[in-house]
């Protein structure tokens, strides 16, 4: 039952596969330059911290050595369990074009660019920094990623989650998956966290959720107080920093934006952005939206909303109950289209459109992400029935189709009127 140092590919095959990862990419994205480019748009002082976190390419080396570093993918891996058992969680989802290109060396063909980018980024000597990689079995790409990375990564934990996100049917399976994971972490890091340690960590992440919700709410209500680059940078920074540090800086940010009075607004439309995650430096869509004067008032993406919006509501302070409520933070309300339960997505969109008075919904899809694409007709027809303008875009990480996308978005803005 216990998964211990398991390789997902047999040792003898691993040796053959190892040289796949030998090739080093030639071009790196200049994070600093990219960061500075988006920072110019910002009128906030306290946002600097978040930009610095994002553009810092040495951030892993700084924290290395003190505590084991756990890299994970997807917003479905419980950070609380990792922190409580003594690790440092770092979310590794990557949408770097150059990483994707070097990932192409390893996996070719019509594969989701996010998976390619992850493969590419991990071949850049970064692998040795991690003591453990956690991969969720959410979508097909992630499942195969566990095998692909197997030859080079020391340890991979595969967190298997059923595709049914109905609380009543799957709670027992989720609970077992999470408690097995917790047991594994405790054994691996040789720590014995007490029940109260876990509860303390939950309180910490709740504090983060609280401040994120305030910012999210304020952004929705007041147009123009914080542009979408700042917002996504702020959310993405939470992948890499400790929770307390992020919370403190977000509090400062909230204080600043709550005082801002917008007199002359450069935005003429408020929209909701949905679809697969947007992660720095893939801000192409945001760039276009900012350019045409569209304010991304809120989002339902797992890189911002999905990562930070839901709290752990502890019911009973027993360990089992805390783990159960953790699954109710991460999996049950997850809007990822890997799961059955499009109702949640529709509910979220309708709620935000009503609450923040939005003009429309832009659904952006990363090319080759099937699960997100397949639900477009459902959303389009339902939103049409409700009278909410809906635009779906399909793109990838490259910047070639910028002009075309811009035309489509402009036409959409005109259509809303």
């Amino acid at each position, binding site marked *: 039952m216990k998964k211990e140092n398991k390789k997902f590919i047999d040792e003898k095959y691993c040796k053959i596969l190892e040289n796949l990862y030998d090739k080093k990419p030639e071009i790196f994205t200049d994070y600093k330059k990219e960061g500075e480019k988006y920072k110019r748009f910002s009128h906030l002082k306290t946002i600097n911290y978040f930009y610095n976190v994002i553009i810092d390419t040495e951030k892993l080396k700084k924290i290395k050595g003190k505590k084991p570093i756990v890299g994970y993918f997807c917003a479905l891996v419980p950070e609380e369990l990792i922190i409580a058992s003594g690790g440092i969680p770092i979310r590794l989802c990557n949408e770097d074009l150059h990483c994707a290109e070097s990932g192409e060396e390893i996996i070719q063909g019509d594969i989701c660019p996010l998976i390619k980018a992850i493969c590419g980024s991990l071949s850049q000597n970064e692998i040795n920094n991690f003591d453990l990689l956690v991969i969720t079995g959410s979508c097909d790409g992630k499942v195969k990623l566990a095998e692909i990375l197997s030859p080079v990564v020391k340890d991979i934990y595969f967190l298997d989650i059923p595709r049914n*996100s*109905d*609380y*009543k049917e799957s*709670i027992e399976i989720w609970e077992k998956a999470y408690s097995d994971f917790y047991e594994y972490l405790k054994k691996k890091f040789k720590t014995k966290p007490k*029940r109260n340690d876990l509860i303390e960590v939950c309180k910490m992440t709740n504090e983060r*959720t*609280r401040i994120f*919700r305030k910012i999210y709410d304020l952004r929705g209500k007041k147009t123009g107080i914080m542009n979408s680059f700042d917002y996504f940078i702020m959310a993405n920074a939470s992948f890499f920093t400790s929770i307390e540090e992020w919370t403190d800086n977000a509090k400062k940010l909230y204080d600043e934006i709550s005082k801002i009075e917008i007199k002359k607004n450069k935005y003429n439309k408020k929209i909701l952005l949905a679809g697969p995650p947007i992660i720095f430096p893939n801000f192409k869509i945001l760039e276009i939206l900012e350019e045409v004067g569209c304010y991304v008032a809120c989002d339902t993406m797992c890189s911002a909303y999905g990562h930070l919006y*839901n*709290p752990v*509501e502890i*019911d*009973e*302070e*027993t*360990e*089992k*109950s805390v783990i*159960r*409520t953790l699954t*109710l*933070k991460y999996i*049950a*309300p997850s809007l990822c289209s890997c799961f059955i*339960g499009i*109702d*949640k997505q529709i*509910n*979220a969109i*309708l*709620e935000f459109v*009503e609450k923040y008075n939005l003009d429309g919904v832009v659904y952006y899809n990363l090319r080759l992400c099937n699960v997100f694409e397949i639900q477009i007709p459902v959303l389009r027809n339902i939103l049409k029935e409700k009278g909410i303008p809906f635009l779906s875009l399909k793109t990838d990480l490259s910047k070639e189709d910028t002009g075309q996308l811009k035309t489509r978005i402009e036409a959409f803005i005109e259509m809303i009127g």
Partner: protein
Amino acid sequence: MRNKISFLRRVVQIVSLILIVYGGYIFKTRLEAETGKPLFPKLKAPEDAMSTTKFEKGKILWPSGTNPVLENYPPSLICRFNPRGGLFKACIFHFISENLTWQTHIKYLLPHLTLFILLCFLFGRIWCGWVCPIGTVGDFITSIRKKMNIPAKRFPSGFRVSLRLFSYGIMAIAFFISTLIGIPNFRRFQCYLFLPYCQICPARLICPLFGLIKPGWKDFENAITSTFTILAWIVMGIFLAAFYFGRRIWCHLCPVGLINSWFNRGAGIELKKKAVNCNKCGLCTETCPMGLTEMYDKNTDGIYNQNGCIMCLRCVEICPKDGCLSVSFFGKKITESKFK
């Protein structure tokens, strides 16, 4: 404060426990001292009821011996009694059973009835969650379990339905016996078979713990009282186990709760859900002490006063989506879910 409603509920529960166990004493002494008149008319058993009792006078009288209210109550002196005190009746099951047997005049039951009707029509089944003394004791047992880090047992909905049916059975038998012994021919059984459910209710064994009275823990006078005592201990065991392992699973079995549950739909208090705000996280079902699922299942706006709901409002308190669940009182919103 994080858990405002739960805290308020604890306070109300403790106050009710004190009122129900010591209430008669408090009211009687104070009023008689001030006005010389009791607040409520003194209760007396009907004459013939007294005459048929086989108990010797004084045997199960109040310690004072001067104020014989219905002497022929369970020897344990159950939840509503205390030495030298008056009557502070609250339990609906007691009220109906007593009336079926002795056809007590309505005026004697007025405080009793008023309390019940007020509670039921205003707040539905609020009795179970906020007032019931053994529920309070049970919640205390549950909190011991939480301290000991033992997870709660969860039961399938079919089990809960069968408990409810069983509860109907208990109620039918108890009322049948109460009616039967009210018929003149059967009056001679009154002294043993009166208030049949009250004699096995866990409160019979628990409530005396809070009073100064002699508990009827080992009443083995004859075959019938022995049967009742043994039954009471068995029920007590079920009660303790139910509260220790399964949160409020007991309340599905309790016939008092059953009667209260009829008033849940249409009560002044309303639990409402705004479906569009729901993110389907399932916390309302996860946290419901009664294990109800309707709130989670349905994706429509509306009133969710289910039969099993004990109005503990824990779902409203814990719901992480702002404005998804709310409580209204005759259409006026009192509180709504908010992530604090």
